[in-house]
């Protein structure tokens, strides 16, 4: 085997332009890594900032809806106030009960009580949050594991 090809190979490997290119490649690789890290960091910051803004606007919206809800309750109460309901009843042909008109039936076994009914419950709003907002990472993993095992989620 001739020694020339080996010398050329050696010369090729040791060529200054080739070493410079290797350094440049390493430099670009490093730069690329830094860029990637920066991009990821920016993405995460952007996502967090957007979520933060969303939380703030949702909070404002929740407060606005609470106020609106209170306002609507007052509107409803104003439309069903006693004076209005009495006028509607009269318009429908009803009239205030007269003591002479009442009739009582005696029902055996019925215990008479005149105690006015206990205070009525006002309609309650039931808020339900999806589990994504309430369960921990451990809860989620447990749920996934159970569902994979065929158990109840």
């Amino acid at each position: 085997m001739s020694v020339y090809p080996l010398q050329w190979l050696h010369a090729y490997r040791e060529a200054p332009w080739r070493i410079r290119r290797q350094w440049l490649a390493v430099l670009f690789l490093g730069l690329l890594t830094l860029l990637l890290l920066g991009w990821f960091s920016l993405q995460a910051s952007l996502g967090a900032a957007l979520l933060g803004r969303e939380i703030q606007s949702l909070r404002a919206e929740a407060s606005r809806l609470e106020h609106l809800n209170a306002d609507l309750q007052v509107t409803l109460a104003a439309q069903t106030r006693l004076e209005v309901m009495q006028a509607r009843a009269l318009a429908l042909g009803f009239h205030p009960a007269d003591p002479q008109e009442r009739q009582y039936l005696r029902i055996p076994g019925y215990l008479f009580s005149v105690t006015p009914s206990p205070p009525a419950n006002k309609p309650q709003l039931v808020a339900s949050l999806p589990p994504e907002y309430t369960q921990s990472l451990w809860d989620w993993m447990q749920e996934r594991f159970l569902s994979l095992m065929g158990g109840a989620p």
Partner: protein
Amino acid sequence: MREEFRLRMALVAGGVGLFALLILARLFYIQNSAEAEAFRIQADVNEYQITYLYPPRGEIRDRQGHLLAGNELVYEVGVALEAVNDPKTLAAALSGALGLDYEQVYAHLLHPAPGEKYWMVRDFVSRDQVQTLRQMQEQLEASGKPLPSLRGLVFREHLMRSYPEKSLASNVLGFVNRENRGYFGIEEKYNDLLAGRPIAVKVPTNPLQAMETPRVPQGTSLILSLDRTLQAKMEALADQALQEYGAKRVVIVVMQPRSGEILAMATTLRMDLNQFWKYAEIYPKAVDFNPAISYAYEPGSVVKIFPMAAALEVGLVTPDTPFWDTGSILVGGRYLYNWNGAAWGRQDMVGCLQHSLNVCLAWVALQLGAPRFYEFMDRFGFGHPTGIDLAAEAAGRLKKPGDADWYPVDLGTNAFGQGIAVTPIQVLMAASAFANEGRMVIPHVVSAIERDGSRYTLPPQYAARTISPKTAHTLSAMLAAALEGEDSTAKVPGYRLAGKTGTAQIPTPLGYSEARTNASFIGWGPLDDPQFMIYVWLEEPSTSIWASETAAPLFARAAEQVILHLKIPPDAVRMAKEH
């Protein structure tokens, strides 16, 4: 060549290095300059925004759940002065929608105060008015033209107390002013509970630091024992009686004697609570807001039932104890007479109550003696506030031996309701002992409180047992017999009720007035199972000075309404034996 290049490079590097050093030096200088501290403070201030979270005021509902006091959405209309680019249009819109003077608004927009960035034009603006302004603003923005414009117009929403039933039960509810402070009634008594606790929160302006703000729970809501329908009926009756009997004031209070729950508390002087600023125009004095608890007056003969109960309790008299009425009695050196000045001859204790004989009751008080008489009156709660859960309750006045203004004759006059000042609610509480096996119950208006979705129902609160169950039954039966034994206008057909009238001349600086009286009636029923107790008071009725002709028939009408509303069957139906 190489040396020259090196020198040049060294110069450039030195220059760049020096520049970098200069930048560092400048940075160091800025960091430690006199202005740096001010900038640091400004940064700290801008980093967070202090926000005060005011909880919505708790609601007030009647026992059926009808809203009596809630919260209405209103707006603060303001202008961000730096953003305004068309003051003429803005001034025209504001003056048109809010009824303001155009020139004044325009002048303010053109020449704001030095340093003024935000101008609060008007607060507590209704939703409809704001809607008009918002629509105008949106239409102008949608047109895409820079002018005309309503830029700078700002709306901030908040809640304001609202009373959908307007004047219904206004004397019980009280009102809330613009500063969210309650005055009178429930609103004042439970102000701290209803208002909740405002929280100051540091909200970071940096969205990356967004954190969860604490949830401010709504103020506690209250469920009242009042029944909206019954309250309205009693108010209508009181208004009618005011006209019919030409009285200055009418008060009707309906209480459940077993639990102390106030079902209705009607007065003739009422106000639309949504216009609370008219309070001073409507009510001459603070006691006029709810005279049922705040106005102490001489009630007259309704008080007679209490010394009679005391005498029964200690065994001094029985219903059959005879009394020879000569028409006058000497007490403390002064003669006291019956209401008509006549001598009624032979009577028993039922007759004494039936004919409301002052002489007989003065004799009963003398038999009891001052120490026992005042001990019993004190036990019945006279001279003390009842503890009802409404603001501004008066204690009344019961003069006692030892007081500078007490005279021996007071023992006699106090026994028939003169020289003693009581409120209607005090008489109701004292009389609750007769309908409640001798135990007095503390009257109350709030029956339950609600907070964070949980409800706590308030149990009845009892005061001391003043008399035995036997005395309570005996006295009730005596009063029922007294009512049945005469042609009383207080009777309700089909029901056995107990009750007592009271006509009291009104004291003046020149003595008791002959023509001006307070007419009162206390009654309860059905006798075998008391379900309601009603107190009626007419101040200075002009058609007749007598309670038997004014307060008694008004009681009958009120009792009829209560019976109808509570669906109480007549005695014959209720007590009929099953076959």
